[in-house]
């Protein structure tokens, strides 16, 4: 419940960022550089006088965008590979070895390496993180497909001459979705953390774009003079990830009662 509320708040902030933000996130208030929180700048300003509140609010928008699109990206890729691998045995060996290969990289390392080649941009962050999480979804889908393809109703459908594609999409896919959806919230959280970490390291979204990671990267340089640059975006990340983790745990208990209590939350970087 608390999880759902926190997630809802994040989504609302993201949608209404221009209204809530009060300031343009790029606007320089040169007279008020590194200003502490005050009635004009609720969360203070950064080293070039940009409003931190506005950058955190727009950062929420970016995080929700990255989390959401990475989740969908990994769903589409993971479901395609998982269905193919689980259903067609000869393909399975090749596909799953490739997925294993990708999973041999720690997520953040693979993301950094991909960003090195793709170059810093929002789209590339999404692509890089998407590639990182596709194999993880594929593994889950494949596992379910292996079980479902042996069920009598699939056998019946095949005996009736239903084409493979229809069997896969209409009979197999819907039955392997619930673990994927549960995993989705954790991928969402991991993608938000991934973007923040990449941007913090300076290899994520370009520095002028407001992102929690970017504000934290600036904040690191002014930790002593301007702790608000670290504290506020930090609180935003924590609230967001906590919300997603709680939401995911709740969703899992709801959709998959067998898994109750099994620790599976998002792994930060």
């Amino acid at each position: 419940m608390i999880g759902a509320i926190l997630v809802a708040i994040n989504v609302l902030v993201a949608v209404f960022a221009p209204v809530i933000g009060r300031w343009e996130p790029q606007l320089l208030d040169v007279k008020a550089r590194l200003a502490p929180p005050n009635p004009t700048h609720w969360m203070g300003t950064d080293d070039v006088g940009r409003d931190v509140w506005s950058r955190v609010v727009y950062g929420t928008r970016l995080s929700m965008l990255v989390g959401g699109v990475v989740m969908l990206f990994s769903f589409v890729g993971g479901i395609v590979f998982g269905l193919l691998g689980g259903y067609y045995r000869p393909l399975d060996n090749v596909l799953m070895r490739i997925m294993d290969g990708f999973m041999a990289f720690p997520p953040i390392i693979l993301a950094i390496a991909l960003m090195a080649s793709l170059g810093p941009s929002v789209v590339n962050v999404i692509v890089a993180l998407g590639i990182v999480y596709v194999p993880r979804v594929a593994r889950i889908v494949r596992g379910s497909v292996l079980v479902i393809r042996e069920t009598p109703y699939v056998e019946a459908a095949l005996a009736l001459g239903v084409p493979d594609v229809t069997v896969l999409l209409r009979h197999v896919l819907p039955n392997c979705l619930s673990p994927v959806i549960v995993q989705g919230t954790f991928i969402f959280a991991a993608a938000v953390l991934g973007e923040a970490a990449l941007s913090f390291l300076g290899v994520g979204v370009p520095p002028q774009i407001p992102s929690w990671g970017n504000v934290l990267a600036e904040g690191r340089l002014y930790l002593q003079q301007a702790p608000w640059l670290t504290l506020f975006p930090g609180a935003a990340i924590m609230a967001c990830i906590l919300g997603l983790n709680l939401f995911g745990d709740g969703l899992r208990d709801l959709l998959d009662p067998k898994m109750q209590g099994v620790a599976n939350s998002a792994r930060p970087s």
Partner: protein
Amino acid sequence: MQTYLLRRVLAVIPVMLVVATVTFVLIHLAPGDPASIIAGPDATPENIARLRTHLGLDEPLPAQLLHWYGRLLRGDLGDSIFLRRPVTEAILERLEPTLLLTSWATLIAVLIGVPAGIVSARYHNTAVDQSFMGLALIGLSIPNFLLGLLMILVFGVWLRWLPVAGYVSLDLGLWPNARSLLMPAVSLGLVQSALIARITRSSMLDVLREQYILASRAKGLAERAVVYKHALKNAIIPTLTVIGITFAILIGGAVVIETVFNIPGVGRLIISAVLRRDYPVIQGVVLIIALTYTLINLLVDLVYLTLDPRIRYQ
């Protein structure tokens, strides 16, 4: 048992083949011609052409790929463009801080996570359990680099107990070294301890529901003996897997933490290489980390095998 062992060891080969291919593709994924990227913006066309022949970039891609495999098998990761020295040398030099940081963090994660998980399971659904699990959930929601920044703020800037950043080499003594790694290791390990606590707790709870636990209680064993002697032995197996992987996971986390605390380890190396577009270094670091990760996973599986006879006979 032997066939399983052999199969498990051999399974590493295709994984490493994919890893090598992915790292090869990295440089070809970058926009532009690899030779001009490597030569840098100031290079003349002749220089670029010479480099292209030197690196074998005018060969067809499959031939290049085969050469790449061949070089890797010989342990040759090429030369850094920026540092002008072999990549393996550059990595070896940066290994000490990263390995120490990861080891300390693993130790912290285990020493906090395992007892917290056991106690939570023993006092299931009490205030102790709920507060530990609440803490664990918060722990899982803090990115390690943020925890690092907050620790610098509190212990470095406000309380001035510990140095805000930097690394003291092991050559200068164990204590100064450990002191410089204390905050980085805690911020890296604490988050992981939350995961370990959750897994230990849930596997303890599963085991405590088993018949043989009921039997040992029925014959009048003390609760202490039931939990620590009978339940723990079986419950610890999934935890051991996580502990094994913890080291591997934390190598990834160390990359970020090194930036927070300015530690000159492998993580700083790869980040500065990304900013300088020093592809051989990026490829080298990524490969070594993936290799380590894979070998640790293999090792964990083999340990698992010796610990749990049920898997051995399958």
